């Protein structure tokens, strides 16, 4: 029988075992664990690289490609990758590389901003619900149930049709609809934290509720939030791509990977790279965020100690 697993063998991965060491802070220790996984660091590096590229989009546009993302060259439509257009041109003669880079800006902005907003809203509500308990908890959790029951995409479509969102407003829309999962997770964490001794102790010395939540419970709930966040980024990028495919996400001429893919779909016959390139970008980004996110959880999740 190949590798009959014992309990230990599949619960911890050797690569993440720590050598015996004096006690360190939680964060340091987790960070070390994360560094131990080469794949995760590689993926993290990739994401960092993409983020840097996205932030430097205007610089790249000016100094590397020498094109803006909307400059059209109607005499050079559908050029294959070759100089001076490193990755070719699209249906209006715009430089593909520049647009991909700006598209990274849009996709990553939507991904991270949405997650940030979800954490803010979901985290606050989760902490409050978990801490106070009782009817407030029930009420808030029912609200979460309501939000989680309504299939988000129906609401997205409705709101997108009406508001024709840009990257910022799209983030708000997705966060508004999707904070529920984070809320639940944080609440569960808050519940378990509430029962811990340090909470009782802090209360007994007369600390106010807000102080307790903010200074004591929040930092302890952070790992759970980080874990949820790191996995969500990839999914949100996929949502933005799907909305753009439906014609409802970011509107042209602003490039996003999703709307580049959707516009180029009808030209697959003769310019397949216009479809493949944004698709690969999406795939790689989502894959790397997922892997990195999982590794973050492996390293940072306090429940796995």
């Amino acid at each position: 029988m190949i590798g009959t697993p014992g309990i230990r063998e599949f619960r911890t991965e050797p690569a993440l075992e720590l050598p015996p060491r004096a006690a360190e802070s939680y964060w340091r220790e987790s960070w070390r664990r994360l560094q131990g996984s080469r794949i995760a660091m590689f993926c993290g590096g990739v994401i960092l690289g993409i983020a840097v590229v996205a932030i430097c989009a205007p610089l790249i546009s000016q100094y590397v490609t020498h094109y803006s993302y909307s400059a059209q060259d109607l005499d050079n439509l559908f050029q294959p990758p070759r100089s001076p257009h490193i990755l070719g041109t699209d249906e209006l003669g715009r430089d593909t590389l520049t647009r991909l880079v700006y598209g990274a800006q849009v996709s990553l902005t939507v991904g991270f901003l949405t997650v940030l907003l979800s954490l803010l809203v979901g985290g606050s509500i989760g902490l409050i619900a978990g801490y106070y308990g009782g009817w407030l908890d029930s009420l808030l959790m029912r609200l979460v149930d309501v939000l989680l029951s309504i299939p988000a995409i129906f609401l997205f479509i409705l709101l997108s049709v009406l508001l024709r969102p840009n990257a910022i407003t799209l983030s708000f829309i997705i966060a508004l609809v999707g904070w529920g999962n984070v809320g639940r997770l944080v609440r569960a964490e808050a519940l378990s934290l509430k029962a811990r001794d340090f909470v009782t102790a802090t209360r007994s010395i007369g600390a106010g509720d807000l102080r307790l939540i903010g200074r004591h419970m929040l930092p302890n709930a952070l790992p759970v939030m980080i874990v949820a966040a790191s996995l969500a980024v990839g999914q949100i990028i996929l949502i933005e791509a799907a909305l753009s495919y439906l014609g409802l996400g970011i509107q042209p001429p602003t490039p996003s990977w999703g709307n580049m893919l959707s516009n180029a779909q009808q030209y697959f016959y003769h310019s397949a790279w216009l479809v493949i390139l944004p698709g690969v970008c999406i795939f790689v980004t989502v894959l790397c965020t997922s892997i990195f996110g999982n590794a973050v959880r492996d390293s940072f999740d306090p429940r796995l100690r």
Partner: protein
Amino acid sequence: MLATYAVRRVLVSIPVVIGVTTVTFLVMKVTAGTYVPGLDLDPNLRPEDVVRIRHQLGVDQPLYVQYWQWVTGIAHGDFGRSMLDGTPVFAHIWSRLPATLELTLTAILLGVVISIPLGVAGARQWGSRLDHMLTGISVAGFAVPQFWLGLMLILLFSVSLKRWGLPWLPSGGQESTIGGGDPLDLLAHLVMPATVLSFFYLSVWSRFVRSSTLEVLSQDYVRTARAKGMPERRVLYVHALRNSIVPLVTLIGLELPGLVAGALVVEVVFGWPGLGLMAYERAKAYDFTMVMGTTTFVALLVILGNLVADLLYAVLDPRIRYSS
């Protein structure tokens, strides 16, 4: 007791139902106000026609009256009227529902049927090349956009196969336009959309089955069973599987909203005549009442699905009904 658990679960669902209807009502009113496309600006309509149609749609009443009508209407199965042609929303929902159910249930079935052997195989040969390959495929499945996968499959199985004179799959719709309707034809149309829809969940569920199975296989009672000479197959499929089926059910229940959402995109890509495609087209046509009526209906379906999943779970796992 199962009965008390069931009753409690149902009771807890009621405020959720009310919450859903409230949220959808609010969204409807906030987004649309009382603007009715094709009505407010149609110059052929005489003033008395406009008044009459507005009354029919109920948009001339004060807000709380409209809300009450909305909620009581839903209790009777009245999900409002379309803003485009005044026809009852529920009639549209009812006519498109079977197609979406067919797609979603097939996708769930496909997902379960494939992910269980896949997960079990991965667990059995834990750490092997096969396991890593399976893991790789499922991780990739997690990251591929659904619509992209659909487009690629259509390109491969509809267009390219046809080009080479091989039997090909139809690129959209539920049945062939001419001479369709027989089971084989329906199946041919169902294969690609269901595969695309299940793909994402396949990857998640197979990983889940795998880890769940691994966990069981490490338990003492399994060691005992093995020591007593029980064939490995029995160990896997009788004990380990039984342990993972139960949470898998809950997992599916949790994924229901995602499945319905995924169905929308798949329906659009493949032109599958279901609720999702209808909602999408109606949203573009600014028929908000239709969209929100459909959304409410689907949300209620999801709540029902979760309820059923929870009750099933309670039936299968006695520990649940006795806790708290």
